[in-house]
């Protein structure tokens, strides 16, 4: 048992080996599906009027796909900087509890805080799901190296994917181009439903789907925030009401 070793001393090559195993682990079915979503994002970013550099930087700096799609949506509807930032922040709150759940898996007494802050940037749904599944099979003091390989590779590969798709998106036949632009909404339609833990999120999704386009007509620029607040708030009230009845 790895954990029972009194004070394991590791050569740098051990860290490299586990880093590389993390790199290899990124080639997986969830990783492949994520890449198809980034293919869609590359096409979407071009249609939104972003430059190649902006699209690639956005991929590396934000990484979480919902936040990127929300920011793109905000840019397209002409939202102001504060409104866009608020909408993106609201769509990213869920990252905090995910990181909270992941950190205890990776931390040892010797782990330096900056390593954890750096690695937390790689947290988004796919890398988190893969990490929660695989980290337990990795020796504890090798887990940060492993996640660095896994998360870092997913980010880097998809930055390249976005750049390549952006480059060729302009020369695709219209039918393929239309299919490319449908990838992102379908990816989220399915993955959002699949990752919801409670019925409140399912109601929120249905409300948001309808309220988004309705508010887009009524209040362009603030449509996302209003649809999110109304739809999410209503779903939460239903959740409270049902829980209250279940208890009574």
């Amino acid at each position, binding site marked *: 048992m790895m954990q029972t070793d009194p004070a394991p001393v590791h050569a740098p090559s051990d860290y490299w080996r586990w880093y590389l195993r993390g790199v290899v682990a990124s080639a997986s079915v969830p990783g492949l599906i994520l890449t198809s979503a980034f293919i869609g994002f590359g096409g979407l970013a071009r249609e939104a009027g972003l430059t190649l550099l902006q699209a690639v930087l956005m991929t590396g700096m934000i990484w979480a796909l919902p*936040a990127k799609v929300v920011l793109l949506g905000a840019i397209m509807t002409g939202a102001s900087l504060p409104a866009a930032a608020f909408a993106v922040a609201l769509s*990213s*709150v869920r990252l*905090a509890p995910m990181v909270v759940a992941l950190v*205890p898996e990776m931390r040892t007494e010797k782990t330096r805080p900056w390593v954890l802050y750096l690695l*937390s940037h790689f947290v988004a749904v796919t890398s988190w799901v893969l990490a929660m599944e695989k980290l337990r099979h990795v020796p504890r003091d090798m887990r940060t190296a492993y996640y660095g390989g896994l998360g870092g590779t997913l980010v880097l590969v998809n930055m390249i994917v976005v750049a390549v798709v952006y480059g060729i998106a302009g020369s695709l036949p219209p039918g393929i181009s*239309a299919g490319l632009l*449908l990838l992102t909404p379908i990816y989220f339609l399915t993955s959002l439903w699949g990752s919801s833990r409670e019925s409140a999120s399912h109601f*929120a999704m249905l409300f948001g789907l309808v309220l988004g386009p309705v508010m887009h007509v009524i209040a362009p620029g603030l449509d996302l925030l209003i649809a*999110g607040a109304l739809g999410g708030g209503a779903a939460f009230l239903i959740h409270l009401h049902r829980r209250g009845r279940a208890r009574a």
Partner: protein
Amino acid sequence: MTFDAIDTWWWPYLFILLAGWLATDMWRFLGVYLGGRVSEKSEALVLVRALATALVAAVIGNLIVFPSGALADVPLWVRIFSAVVGFAAFLAIRKSILAGIVAAEAVLLTAIYLFGQMG
């Protein structure tokens, strides 16, 4: 203060940095800081998840109803029908995201081919 409000090379990057990177990574950093002090099952987190889900769903709705580029040339009913079939396939085939994507794309491309709506 919109994305193309100020005509300089750096404004879009500042916009992405503040509205994108800062608005996202502050939650990740908060997560590291809080460590194990927040319960994933708390009611406040249910509300937060509901708000975030509705917000992302609103973007999805807009991407289907008010798309840009070549997808805008496809009639609305074809877009909605493709999405509905994709979602149904996802539910029917062991909640497979891949099945949903393949089914939706198949419907869309078939409709474009049959009706020649793309000219």
